[in-house]
């Protein structure tokens, strides 16, 4: 059942019948007919079968919004949403969505398959991700220009670039591209998301290997991680950030990109401690400051879960349960 606003539009067509009178003169009869089309206004969540996408869709539903999903696979994870099958760049899926709905906003949470890039060139890798993803979206959005677009950084990058300058360069490209696709947008550059979703899945990021190691009982190991300081934010807080950023845009807020994190950077060693491990190969010293105060001021968003040990414990517990039930996680 879709709730919320509906859009009614009228399209008119003109027909003309030409008749020759007995005296040889012509009469042309013009008639117009109008077709009333009523479409429900919806937000579209891409990657709705995924870890972040499902949580965002559920948060939007709880906030009273009408939501439809786009998913590469129709798994039980997409329920109970009306979901279209296809990747974010699959034009027929978007056409089907547009023919049945008025798209109010796109919450782009899908992550694309990793494109081929030169080995070790992380900046190129990230750039390809950004441009490919947005180019795919643009095939549809250029024609329809959805008013609002909310973009998750998880949708454009599976892993961050090696250097700060490469990261900044990529973000600029991302913002330029996004700005060309829609009326207004928010890019949420999401920090490390931690915590299980309602299906017991944990993130594909660092959360998952840590939790798996912990579940396996390892006490000393080495995980190669290029980011020594990590900002962990809970899945529930991330979903809440999307909802609040959407409200901000709908109320006329300006386009922007914010780093969504708890604002509490955690050294890798402490992460290891939280998950009950010891480790770390540190390659680059760089961290990304969360815009927590800005998000609080503009979106009224504040992270509620900031205790990493508690979040880690929930993840480890979820992974243990999944292992026990034979589930595979996200």
């Amino acid at each position, binding site marked *: 059942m879709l709730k919320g606003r509906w859009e009614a539009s009228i399209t*008119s067509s*003109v027909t*003309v*019948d030409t*008749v020759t*009178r007995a005296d040889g*003169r*012509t*009469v*042309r*009869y*013009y*008639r*117009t007919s*109008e077709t009333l089309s009523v479409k429900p206004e919806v937000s579209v969540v891409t990657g709705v079968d995924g870890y972040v996408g499902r949580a965002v869709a559920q948060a939007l539903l709880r906030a009273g919004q009408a939501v439809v999903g786009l998913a590469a696979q129709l798994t039980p994870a997409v329920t109970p949403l009306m979901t279209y099958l296809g990747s974010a760049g699959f034009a027929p899926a978007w056409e089907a969505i547009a023919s049945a709905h008025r798209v109010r906003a796109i919450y782009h949470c899908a992550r694309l398959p990793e494109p081929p890039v030169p080995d070790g060139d992380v900046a190129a890798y990230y750039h390809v991700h950004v441009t490919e993803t947005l180019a795919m979206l643009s095939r549809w959005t250029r024609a329809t220009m959805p008013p609002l677009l909310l973009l998750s950084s998880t949708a454009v990058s599976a892993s961050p670039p090696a250097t700060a300058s490469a990261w900044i360069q990529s973000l600029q490209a991302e913002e330029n591209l996004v700005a060309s696709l829609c009326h207004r947008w928010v890019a949420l550059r999401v920090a490390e998301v931690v915590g299980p979703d309602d299906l017991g899945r944990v993130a594909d990021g660092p959360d998952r290997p840590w939790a798996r190691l912990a579940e396996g009982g390892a006490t000393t190991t080495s995980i190669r991680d290029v980011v020594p300081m990590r900002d962990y934010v809970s899945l529930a807080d991330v979903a809440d950030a999307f909802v609040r950023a959407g409200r901000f845009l709908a109320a006329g807020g300006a386009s922007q990109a914010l780093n969504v994190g708890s604002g509490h950077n955690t050294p890798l060693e402490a992460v290891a401690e939280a998950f009950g491990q010891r480790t770390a190969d540190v390659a680059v010293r760089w961290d990304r400051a969360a815009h927590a105060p800005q998000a609080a001021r503009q979106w009224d968003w504040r992270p509620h879960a900031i205790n990493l040990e508690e979040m880690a414990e929930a993840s480890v517990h979820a992974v243990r349960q999944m292992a026990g039930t034979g589930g595979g996680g996200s």
Partner: protein
Amino acid sequence: MIDIVQDPLTGEWVSLANARQSRPLTRPGTACPFCPGPETEVGTKPFHVAVIDNRFPVFDHPGAAEVVVYSPRHDDDYGYLDSWHARLIWRVWQDRTRALLERPDVTTVFVFENRGRRIGATIDHPHGQIYGYPYWPARLQREHAHGGVPGDCRLCRPEDLGLPVVDTAAWHVVVPHAMRMPYQLMLIPRAHAANVTQLADPQVSDGADLLQRVYQTYDRLFGFRAALALAVFQPALGQHLRIECLPIDRGQFRQKYLAASELAMGAFVTDIPAAVAQDQLRALITAMPTASRWTRNEQEGDPHDHAH
């Protein structure tokens, strides 16, 4: 019998169509040829707008003369039609202009309406006309001769042409600096379009609505259904389309007559300063809500008509 004769003194063309002397006048009690019916010009086939080859043509191969019947309803008026209906009339103008311009015997297409008996409408049923001239009419010849430079469109600089009255999304409305008739208005599309066929959908919708507001504005200004000439200029030579509304009154019960200077010399004399017309028309048209319309007052009409 139609003769097209050139004036040896001026080079202007004149059409002599003596059959028009016998064309009917509709007055109370007489049958209307544009109302639907088995014996009428439009017959019984349902329509919203009908286009008929003129039974009493001014031109007929070479050239064309057509009548655009705006509505099957005898008491409709362009200014007070539903929006979709007004827009359909513009679609018809586009369709017929496109078709006539393809004919080798048509030089330019003139879409117009004579609104009201006092300006010469012989049939009360709401209708306009379309001429496909087989030559360049004198007015357009003079415009071409007076600085009509291909590629330099004077209509793209409306501030040179008149005083602004109102701007809409797609149109400017100005009172011409050189008004030929009191309260004359010029509607100019913001985007260059050589003729009505080049107007995009939003320009058509906006223009059709705007022209209705202009009609209603005149009715309010004079206090009765204004008699006016609607003229759609499609001038070619790189200039762009414009629509002129030429009312024949200079105030309530004060008609502007075309007399010796205008008829004999083509030299117009106008009693109302352009700035005064601008103030009065702007006050009325900007006060008019665009979404909801003034309701047509059925009691109002053409006071001169009732006098007959």
